[in-house]
């Protein structure tokens, strides 16, 4: 049994220490995922409501998705309810517009690479994530993405939500979600490439 499954079994038994472990592991993620949707102040309320609902319903959690994905689904529902309640707080009207490729200047007029990708020192996510400075740099740049790209990257990559769930939550077409995800990945790739070349964030 891995650590997450063990924590879930303890949560199902109502172990307060497991609640603390769960909050420590996922609270910041819930805040980060919901800030672009509802704003900083309401994100705290969304996260709090998410924990109330999650602890009350954890017995029904069957482990068909990761615990973080399950929490993210609850948080999205709470964020939607919060947005309905405070409809003027955060507008998503400008979301989903494709700003175009962030690497367009790296190609010649006929579409060949003029600044090709460099060779990287790291081959796997584990190798990348063992470097504390690089991890911190990724987090920093994740928060610097445009709000719509940041939300989609958080929901898809970090939370593991399906495209149709994200589209529904943001009121956008799945095609828009895929474009936003691609732009977000491209920007994060550029950040990683810079770190691989320079060794600094």
């Amino acid at each position, binding site marked *: 049994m891995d650590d997450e499954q063990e924590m879930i079994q303890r949560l199902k038994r109502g172990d*307060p220490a497991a609640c603390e472990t769960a909050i420590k*592991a996922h609270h910041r993620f819930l805040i980060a995922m919901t800030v672009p949707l509802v704003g900083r102040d309401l994100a705290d309320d969304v996260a709090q409501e998410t924990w109330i609902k999650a602890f009350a319903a954890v017995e029904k959690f069957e482990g068909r998705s990761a615990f973080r994905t399950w929490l993210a689904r609850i948080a999205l529902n709470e964020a939607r309810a919060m947005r309905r309640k405070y409809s003027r707080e955060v507008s998503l009207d400008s979301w989903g517009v494709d700003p175009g490729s962030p690497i367009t200047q790296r190609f010649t007029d006929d579409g060949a690479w003029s600044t090709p990708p460099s060779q990287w020192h790291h081959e796997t996510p*584990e190798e990348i994530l063992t470097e504390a400075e690089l991890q911190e740099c990724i987090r920093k740049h994740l928060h610097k993405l445009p709000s719509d790209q940041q939300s989609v990257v958080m929901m898809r990559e970090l939370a593991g939500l399906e495209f149709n769930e994200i589209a529904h939550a943001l009121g956008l077409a799945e095609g828009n979600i*895929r474009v936003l995800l*691609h732009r977000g990945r491209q920007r994060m790739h550029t950040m990683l490439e810079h770190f691989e070349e320079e060794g600094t964030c």
Partner: protein
Amino acid sequence: MLTCREMSELGSDIIDHRLTFKTRLGVLMHLSMCVRCRNYIKQLELTSNTLKKISIDDEYVDTDSILKSVRKPDA
């Protein structure tokens, strides 16, 4: 024949396996000849897989106050 710029635009569809048969043939043909695009697509996938595994929870979290406010399930 797809250009490298077009390959970069297809990057996420490639790593998410969402190409039509015809586009997939064009992509495979391009990749077989272009080490630069092979690098880009491989690195884009590594970027995506790294994001899937990153934790954003290393900051201090005041679990006591959160637990108090959400009422413990055994309370």
